[in-house]
């Protein structure tokens, strides 16, 4: 069975975003939004990286006076903030918004307009922070913004307010994306894609998104309390008036530690996808892999106090958090063992995506092991807030997230664009990154043990930290060169790379059973799934869903763990209202940095925009009514 050419054209027209500038503002197609989202978060990655290079220049030698203390403090605050809030979590959600519907055989994400709104809110929040920074109003209290240093008394400038509002922007966006992804996964899987046939990556995104729902409200609450402390003189964090400085730390790390896993779990899914494809066999131990992801999601909420071992919390309580912090290594270890087992029995197709995944084994394992050291109260008391922790967190976050993310880009770029990324330049990029990374961050372990604290803009020559810091700087510039190579590769390949075809890696999951790049409706014929790897092996019948409109944005909603067809649903059309509503929301948020009345008056435009967004239109409801009456 196949679709007629005329129907294919009509279907493409139905699901396309409007052309030209209207398309810029009105787009709701998940692929359009996702590509923009990925580009925006990668732009913040590059910006955060440039700030890191400036910091490394300053630290390259002892007693350097290239940057002032104030600017240096702003740089590390902006670097941490960019990487954690504007890059790592959003880019994982952005990639998911592209891939999840394709992997589960859906035509769209759930709530496509909310998806667009979440993207615009994210962009406006990030741009606001960078505009403030470039205008000399950058925050300078660290990405963790501990009170009372971030309170009005010690930081009277507006930088902290911009930082705290940026939290509101990005977490609002993150929460909405989580709702979009969870709903998409639970209700829009192709018929036959039972939970036990879901790709491991989709499982990872389900776990991640549910974690987002519990983790992000904690930091939004904390930052809102900080804003009200600063703006209207509430005293949540003022000890003299019954507030508590540790309240901030509890709330921040109750978000902050799970956040590491929000960044880390999606790449576990990348790795499972890439290993299965390039070892030419399913990843060993599917139930163990899924249970490990779920266990990680639960345990991640029981670790936050290991950031607070130097405070005066009860010792017995700290012991509990040591145990939990050690225990969470187990599910990750199980996944690593399963991947090694897969490689062991596999036949390997050695391509660039696999290289990046193999780097994960070296770097993430090392970062995980230093994590076990930091889980120990006595060791943490020495290592906490030193360069040892800087080394650890970069081994975990670059090894656990950025290396697999680059692997994922090499793997899925053909699907995104229809063209292959250059393989030769890819290998150069990989080796520059891998060597540069270790040259840069391995010496930091030693620096930490030799007593170099974090967040210092300088150090005396007598401390003897100069050589290792110079090495770290050289490595950092190698990483910079590697990222530059990647950007060149992307631009060149997007313009004139080799055509990819439907399934260039002969992979097994659903996204490879449609053209590259996919048509606006993802699949001309929505698939029916009969196995965990629908693109591998014989095609079973029925192969396709039939009966969905080609002139309406209709999707099939399924229900239950087995994804039984439930009902057809019409998805909304492109519209500028998410964009306008995000503008109004931004005006409210930014205005409230200056006056509490912005919350009152700023709510009016938001309410108007949201009302028009949902305003029912007769023309739109007429046809479904007729169809209901006479199907």
């Amino acid at each position, binding site marked *: 069975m196949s679709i007629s050419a005329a129907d294919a054209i009509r279907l493409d027209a139905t699901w396309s975003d409007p052309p030209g500038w209207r398309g810029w503002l009105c787009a709701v197609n998940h692929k359009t939004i996702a590509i923009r989202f990925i580009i925006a978060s990668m732009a913040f990655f590059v910006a955060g990286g440039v700030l890191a290079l400036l910091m490394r*220049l300053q630290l390259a030698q002892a007693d*350097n*006076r290239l940057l002032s*203390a104030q600017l240096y*403090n702003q740089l590390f605050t902006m670097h941490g903030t960019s990487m954690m809030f504007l890059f790592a979590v959003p880019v994982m959600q952005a990639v998911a918004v592209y891939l999840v519907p394709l992997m589960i055989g859906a035509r769209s994400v759930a709530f496509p307009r909310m998806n667009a709104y979440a993207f615009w809110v994210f962009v406006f929040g990030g741009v606001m922070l960078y505009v403030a920074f470039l205008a000399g109003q950058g925050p300078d*209290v660290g990405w963790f913004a*501990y009170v*009372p*240093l971030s309170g009005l008394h010690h930081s009277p400038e507006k930088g902290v307010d911009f930082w705290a509002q940026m939290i509101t922007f990005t977490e609002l966006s993150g929460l909405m994306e989580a709702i979009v992804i969870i709903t998409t996964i639970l209700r829009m899987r192709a018929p036959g894609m039972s939970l036990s046939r879901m790709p491991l990556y989709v499982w990872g995104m389900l776990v991640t998104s549910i974690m987002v729902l519990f983790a992000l409200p904690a930091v939004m609450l904390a930052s809102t309390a900080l804003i009200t402390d600063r703006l209207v003189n509430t005293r949540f964090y003022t*000890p003299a008036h019954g*507030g*508590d*400085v540790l309240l901030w730390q509890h709330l921040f790390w109750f978000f902050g530690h799970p956040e590491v896993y929000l960044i880390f779990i999606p790449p576990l899914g990348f790795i499972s996808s890439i290993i299965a494809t390039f070892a*030419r*066999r*399913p990843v*060993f*131990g599917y139930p163990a892999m899924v249970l490990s992801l779920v266990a990680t999601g639960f345990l991640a909420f029981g670790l936050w106090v290991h950031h607070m071992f*130097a*405070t005066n919390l009860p010792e017995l309580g700290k*012991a509990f958090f040591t145990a939990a912090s050690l*225990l969470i290594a*187990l599910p990750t*270890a199980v996944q690593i*063992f399963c991947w*090694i087992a897969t*490689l*062991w*029995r*596999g*036949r*390997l*197709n*050695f391509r660039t995506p696999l290289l990046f995944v193999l780097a994960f*084994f*070296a770097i993430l*394992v090392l970062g995980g*092991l230093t994590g*076990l050291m930091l889980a*120990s109260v006595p*060791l*943490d*008391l*020495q*290592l*906490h*807030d030193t360069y040892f922790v800087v080394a650890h967190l970069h081994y975990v976050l670059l090894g656990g997230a950025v290396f697999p993310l680059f692997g994922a880009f090499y793997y899925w770029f053909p699907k995104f664009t229809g063209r292959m990324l250059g393989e030769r330049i890819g290998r150069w990029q990989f080796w520059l990154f891998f060597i540069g990374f270790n040259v840069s961050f391995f010496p930091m372990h030693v620096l930490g*043990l030799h*007593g170099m*604290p974090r*967040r210092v803009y*300088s150090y005396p*020559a*007598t*401390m*003897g930290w100069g050589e290792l810091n110079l090495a770290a700087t050289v490595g950092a510039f190698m990483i910079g060169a590697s990222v530059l190579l990647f950007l060149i590769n992307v631009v060149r390949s997007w313009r004139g790379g080799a055509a990819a075809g439907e399934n*260039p*890696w002969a992979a097994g999951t659903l996204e490879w059973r449609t053209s590259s790049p996919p048509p606006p409706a993802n699949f001309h014929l929505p698939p029916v799934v009969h196995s965990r*790897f629908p693109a591998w*092996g014989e095609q079973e019948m029925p192969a396709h869903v039939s009966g969905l409109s080609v002139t309406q944005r209709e999707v099939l909603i399924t229900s239950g763990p087995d994804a039984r067809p439930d009902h057809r649903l019409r998805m909304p059309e492109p519209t500028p209202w998410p964009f306008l509503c995000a503008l109004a929301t931004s005006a409210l948020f930014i205005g409230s940095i200056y006056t509490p009345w912005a919350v009152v008056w700023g709510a009016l435009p938001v309410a108007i925009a949201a009302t028009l967004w949902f305003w029912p239109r007769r023309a739109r409801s007429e046809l479904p009514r007729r169809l209901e009456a006479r199907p």
Partner: protein
Amino acid sequence: MRRLLHAIPATLISAVQAAPSQHNALQPAGVQAEHILRLWQGTLALCTLVFVLIAAAVLLALWRAPRASADSAPDLAPLNRTETGLRRAVSWAAALSGIGLVALLWADMHTSRALAQLPADGALRIELTGHQWWWQATYHDPLSGARFVTANELHLPVARAAIVTLRSEDVIHTLWVPNLHGKKDMLPGRVTEIRLRADLPGEYRGQCAEFCGEQHTLMALLVVAEPPAAYQAWAARQARPAAAPLGQASRGLQAFMDYRCAGCHTIAGTRAAGSIGPDLTHMASRQTLAAGTLPNTRGHLGGWIVDAPTLKPGTRMPATPMPAEDLHALLTYLETLQ
């Protein structure tokens, strides 16, 4: 890039001592740091073993697995049957990991208990308060009964415990003297405590470890561990008020009052009783200025008095320009505060 680095002017603003004091978690000078070092060595050994095993397993897998291309048909057999051999291997590896983690947990608990059990009979008591960006220490020695206030430099008698009570006047700071012990936070609104014991005489550097604002970098502390007799002599000197100045020094004291230094600083035995900046009663006995920012020499002290904000931007010490003769008198006086 190299050339750029060399072009950057390097001024030795914070080069402190000729012979650097120790600042290294791997060279314990006290029993607490010694316990932690032993735990570190054991943990490092176990983790290195695990890393080597995993790396070997990955490399072996890569070496033995046959090569394929995208044309190779995928192996779908594992979807329909259990691979008993692999399952056994993965289960064993997971079980061994569990045992390793329990071993680490046991070692952590064991060390925590050892740290908490430092004998504190007749311990010296010090109250240490964090300020942006310096340390104020109030000594109370229950054996000699001596009480005095000093700043930025602690002296400890070797082999005798000190119970250090930690407070903060402004933001969160963290005490960290790596050769002696791990860190403890100084939290506004809360009181924390750390027990230190230096077992080897020597000079150990400490530094604030929690980011505490613009000059977090320039918030160092010096700990001098010395034999009990030397410590007693030091404590006795610190407990005395400043000697009455003579000659040019008395003109210096006058300058100290005229230029309103006394608004912030205390010199016991004079009318200067400010409490915003460090106690200066025996400032000449200290090795550094402004919490490890500068060596305590006449030249640096003069520069600091005249223009502190340039040397440590953000400091609350104002620039105090004055005629050369006043400055010289003031420096001569301050140098008598041994």
